[in-house]
């Protein structure tokens, strides 16, 4: 009787998750989507607590309180610039939970057959996503060097570890009672997670975070198979496919394949490539920049990770306000891989109160650059490099870019001429219509804002 009721509750919860994702598609309905998701989760938990095999409420309650005590501050105290780190961390938690449940299940029941296959998948994905996400967190939080860490024979080593882990998994699936294999299996999965992320550099983080998201979901789905729980399967599959789609979107935006992202170690390979001779650049001061911006009709801003690092989004908003007030049309061009996770720039600009209908996707804005009087590049590099379009020999050739070079004047705010993540010189900086604004993005934008503000008062 209770079991039927529980299944019914689970079905409603699954429907809530589906509606939640459906409503997530547009900003107008997205918050309703969150509410629905919360409702679904509440139902799932209540339904589970009702099951008659659940009797130990005390430990559950303590764990709920402890988790909430950590979770609430994590949600409210995290600055928006740290959202990629938080996401990596929560992938780690989710994957850890899945892996530990699988481990407990194994030692308790030692399941056989296909259930064991599901359990091994859950544990493998869970543990490798756990350490992998912790590594990603370390890199994003700059506890670890953000550059790719590579060594000779890296790929063979990684593949060997993965192969051994898979072998141990197969062995366990065939002979589940061989308990000595299980710790080895766990250790291999944990080590592989670390090795997988070592060669990943900052600009590849969006893809990798999305991929880890997918793995975390898949391990929850595998848990559903192991526990014969369809709600887990549905929620896990939704999460798994979401992460998968996002990582495909990211890969396409870089014109690279999965294998290339995971095993390519981008930055390292090209570090020695294309080191152009000293070429002249044109520079400008905040004053010059202000007067050009002032007389423009259409200004398109291309933000990148540098904007996040310099925390320049609020100054950008001030500039947006001043220019809009003078009738200048200011738009923002968002490259899909700008920043450190999918959609990173949108969140930062929204945080700075820039209306979201001013944020344009790459495909929608690229044709507008030709009509733009000014393209203002703030902390973006490789995603604006015309070599991706023109230079067949360039390592980033074929990558879709923002066509900022087509604007009448290009202004680039940048600390120095140092190459971007891909280690490639950016031809954009040496073009005739480009003005380099050397300095910290936040203070330089502050300078421009001051100039414009002074002009208002006169």
């Amino acid at each position, binding site marked *: 009787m209770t079991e039927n009721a529980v299944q019914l509750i689970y079905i409603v919860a699954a429907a809530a*998750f*589906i509606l939640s*994702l459906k409503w*997530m*598609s547009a*900003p107008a309905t*997205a*918050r309703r989507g*969150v509410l629905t*998701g919360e409702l679904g*989760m509440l139902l*799932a*938990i209540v339904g*589970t607590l009702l099951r008659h*095999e*659940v009797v*130990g409420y005390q*430990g*559950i309650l303590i*764990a709920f309180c402890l*988790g909430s005590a950590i*979770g609430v501050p*994590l*949600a*409210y105290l*995290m600055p928006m610039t740290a*959202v990629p780190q938080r996401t990596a961390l929560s992938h780690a*938690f989710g994957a850890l*939970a899945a892996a530990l*449940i699988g481990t*407990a299940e194994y*030692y*308790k029941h030692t399941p056989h057959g296909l259930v064991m296959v599901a359990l091994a998948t859950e544990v493998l994905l869970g543990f490798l996503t756990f350490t992998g996400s912790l590594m990603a967190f370390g890199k994003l939080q700059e506890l670890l060097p953000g550059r790719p860490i590579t060594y000779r024979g890296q790929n063979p080593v990684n593949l060997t570890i993965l192969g051994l882990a898979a072998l141990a998994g197969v062995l366990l699936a065939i002979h589940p009672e061989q308990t000595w294999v299980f710790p080895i299996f766990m250790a291999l999965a944990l080590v592989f997670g670390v090795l997988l992320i070592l060669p990943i550099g900052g600009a590849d983080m969006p893809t990798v975070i*999305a991929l880890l998201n997918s793995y*975390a979901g898949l391990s*929850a789905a595998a848990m*559903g*198979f192991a526990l*014969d729980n*369809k709600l887990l*399967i549905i*929620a*896990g599959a*939704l*999460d798994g*496919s*979401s*992460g998968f*789609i996002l990582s495909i*979107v990211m890969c396409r935006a870089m014109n690279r394949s999965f294998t290339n992202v995971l095993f390519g170690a981008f930055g390292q390979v090209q570090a020695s490539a294309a080191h152009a001779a000293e070429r002249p650049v044109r520079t400008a001061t905040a004053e010059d920049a202000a007067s050009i911006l002032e007389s423009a009709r259409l200004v398109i801003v291309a933000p990148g990770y540098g904007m996040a690092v310099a925390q320049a989004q609020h100054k950008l908003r001030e500039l947006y306000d001043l220019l809009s007030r003078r009738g200048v049309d200011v738009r923002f061009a*968002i490259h899909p891989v700008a920043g450190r*996770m*999918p959609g990173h720039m*949108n969140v930062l600009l*929204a945080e700075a109160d820039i*209306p*979201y209908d*001013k*944020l344009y*996707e790459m495909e929608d804005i690229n044709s507008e650059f030709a009509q733009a009087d000014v393209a203002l590049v703030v902390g973006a590099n490789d995603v604006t490099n015309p070599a991706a379009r023109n230079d067949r020999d360039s390592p980033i050739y074929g990558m879709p870019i923002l066509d900022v070079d087509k604007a009448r004047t290009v202004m680039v705010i940048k600390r120095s001429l140092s190459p971007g993540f891909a280690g490639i010189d950016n031809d954009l900086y040496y073009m005739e219509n480009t003005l380099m604004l050397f300095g910290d993005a936040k203070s330089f934008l502050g300078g421009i804002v001051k100039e414009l503000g002074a002009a208002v008062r006169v």
Partner: protein
Amino acid sequence: MRFDEATLFVFVLAAFLGFELIRHVSPLLHTPLMSLTNAISAIAVVGAILILGEKDAPALSRVLGFVAVTASTINLVSGFLITDRMLKMFKKREPEKP
């Protein structure tokens, strides 16, 4: 425990449904989307509760179950809350001030 092939159907259908749903999410919202799916994948809490709350659960299950419930609670609480916090910031242009 047996392996029910119906569960495989559920998985495949849910995955396709997921593809269709996510394809329609505007890239504008990819970050909140990821934190939302993160919170949803904290559904692992269901499995964790079953392990921790089981009658006469062995010590190992209790410890692992406790960590798992805590970890998934962190995820679901912070995931839903931060998604909402982010979405609150997405505003359309305010009406022109006179």
